[in-house]
């Protein structure tokens, strides 16, 4: 064990991330076998991969966003409903009010940012506990989305239809019929940007330090409230962007839902090595964690099980991941 963790390659990539890669590959083979045994179908197919990726796109952005918040030692339970709320409002403006597509996409991101600002303001400036604050704004997001669309669900245009260009952010189907998973590039690009923000900029430095010891940072003369709020704004903004990738893949959004994604996004982040107590976060790890979540959901569906099984499994994953997390933090101190 010690030898492995001292290996230069392992050190550079990180033991945790290599482990996640193994889990990912293992899981893929496991599903291949299970799906074959249970359903008599072939799990290895491009369609399955694309379908899993569809799930990974929006989940990835949610997970990346919440990574920033967890890095400050907080939590955001509103991301799923906020994503839905953003998709509902912007989609309603697009389909019912005929607003231009580009503006609607901007509105979607803006809605996310506003919720992030609200959470961040309440947590950083009013010192409210983040979990209860974000649960409150989860209710707000569910209510606002549903009030805005008068409890109607919203269907975004198909790729071929008018205003369908936004789907090029998720996939492009060429004339010869090949599919280019552009969403993957979008996700990778945003992941890289997030990694740069977290590791190379002042914002990332302070966000991580606040998570580690907020009071010490404040007593260094740093405006901790501003940086803490920024983490929530980043999170909200990414949730707004996730909305676009979500409708690009799944078209329809219903009001009053979305909270089931919170847990999966948090699971992705915590599996990736983000410490629940704050101060430690890994974008690469989060990326891999999200891939595992996406593969899980695809595999469970392919085995012919309800999505309910995924709730149970993610619940257990979070418990285990947080337990491992708490243990390893304790050992360090």
């Amino acid at each position, binding site marked *: 064990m010690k030898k492995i963790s001292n290996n230069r390659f392992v050190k550079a990539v990180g033991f945790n991330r290599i482990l996640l890669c193994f889990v990912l590959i293992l899981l893929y083979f496991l599903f291949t076998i299970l799906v074959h045994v249970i359903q008599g179908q072939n799990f290895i197919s491009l369609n399955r991969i694309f379908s899993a990726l569809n799930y990974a796109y929006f989940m990835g952005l949610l997970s990346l966003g919440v990574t920033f918040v967890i890095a400050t030692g907080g*939590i955001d*339970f509103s991301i799923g409903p906020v994503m839905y709320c953003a998709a509902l409002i912007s989609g309603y403006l697009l389909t019912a009010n005929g607003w231009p597509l580009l503006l609607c996409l901007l509105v979607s991101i803006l809605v996310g940012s506003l919720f992030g600002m609200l959470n961040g303001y*309440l947590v950083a400036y*009013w*010192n*409210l*506990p983040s*979990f*209860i*604050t974000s*649960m*409150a*704004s*989860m*209710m*707000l997001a*569910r*209510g*606002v989305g*549903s*009030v805005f669309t008068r*409890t109607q669900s919203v269907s975004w245009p198909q790729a071929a239809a008018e205003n369908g260009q936004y789907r090029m952010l998720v996939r492009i189907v060429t004339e010869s019929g090949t599919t280019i998973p552009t969403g993957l590039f979008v996700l990778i690009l945003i992941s890289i940007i997030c990694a740069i923000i977290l590791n190379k900029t002042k914002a990332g430095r302070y966000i991580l330090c606040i998570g580690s010891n907020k009071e010490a940072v404040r007593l260094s003369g740093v405006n901790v409230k501003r940086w803490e709020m920024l983490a929530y704004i980043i999170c909200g903004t990414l949730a707004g962007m996730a909305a676009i990738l979500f409708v690009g893949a799944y078209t329809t959004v219903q*009001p*009053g839902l979305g*909270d*089931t994604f*919170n*847990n999966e996004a*948090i699971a992705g982040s915590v599996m990736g090595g983000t410490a*629940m107590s704050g101060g430690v976060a890994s974008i690469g790890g989060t990326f891999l964690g999200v891939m595992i979540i996406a593969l899980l959901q695809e595999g469970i569906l392919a085995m012919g099980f*309800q999505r*309910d*099984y*995924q*709730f*149970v*499994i*993610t*619940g*257990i994953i*979070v*418990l285990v991941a*947080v*337990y491992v997390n*708490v243990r390893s933090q304790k050992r360090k101190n």
Partner: protein
Amino acid sequence: MGAGVKKGNAFTNNPIVKTVGTQKIVVIGVIIFLAIFFSWMSPAFRQYSTVVSIFDFSYYVSLMAIGVTFPLITGGVDLSIGTGMVAAGLFAGNLVNQQNLPVGLALLVCILFGVALGCLNAFSVAKLNLPPFIATLSSMMIARGLGSILVGGMSVTWPAGATEQGWFRSIFRLDANGTLIPVGFILILALVIVMSVFLNHSRPGRYIISVGSNKEAARLSGIHVAKWHALAYIISGFFTGLAGVAYAATFQGIVPGTGAGLELDAIAGVIIGGTSMKGGYGTIGGTLLGVFVMSLLKTGLPFIGLQANWQQIITGIVLIIAVFIDVTRNAKK
């Protein structure tokens, strides 16, 4: 009361004010104000049936709220009460429908389901030392998925009031020749008194408060901290099961996948009632009053034209206000 005031003034020394508590008197004022406000705004509100539905709503919420008061006193929280309640109701109701289980036994199963969920939470929080909000969020997801899986994704209808097996509905709402009498309120009141005595005048109650006040000091006083910490969550689970009974008795059918968000009504009620999110202090009587504020709001808002989707927004806003008051009150001390 100011921090410097030791002996209090004439008002706070008044025996009635002292026993009831300032916050509770304010909350009673709010309840009266809301009742007058809604009656004034809407003639339809001034009906006996409204009173019945206010009580109907209050049963399951106040049972959840009484239970969750205990984890809150320890400085934690239990987010699994909403979906746990629904899962318990689903599971037990399904046994009645599919296995012809007598309703009496089914109600017991419902309560035991809640206790089992409470034990899971107790294990992760008190034994594994996981952060309560994330541990109970996981069990919230698990309960949600499990409830649905156990009944095969179909909604469950408990026996109707008129049928032979429907006697349990009159525990809460007695149908006396067409006039509905909210007898459940007496039951709730009795439970409030019992739990209030338990909290304030029994050793387990005292030790649960001690865990929330200063865990380390409690440990050094020779108190088995983990045991009492666990008990708080088991109590919460027990009341989740009871709430499941009330939920089944109040509504015609129970739909899988619902219940998320109901925990926030209960938690908001508890905090409005004066229990601190910081732990160490709580009042069961206040919890009941707080629930009535929520109950009045939820029942009254449709009468002034704000439909169900607005209720989520109101829950969110009330929750933020309640937590804000709690945080400022603690900051003053």
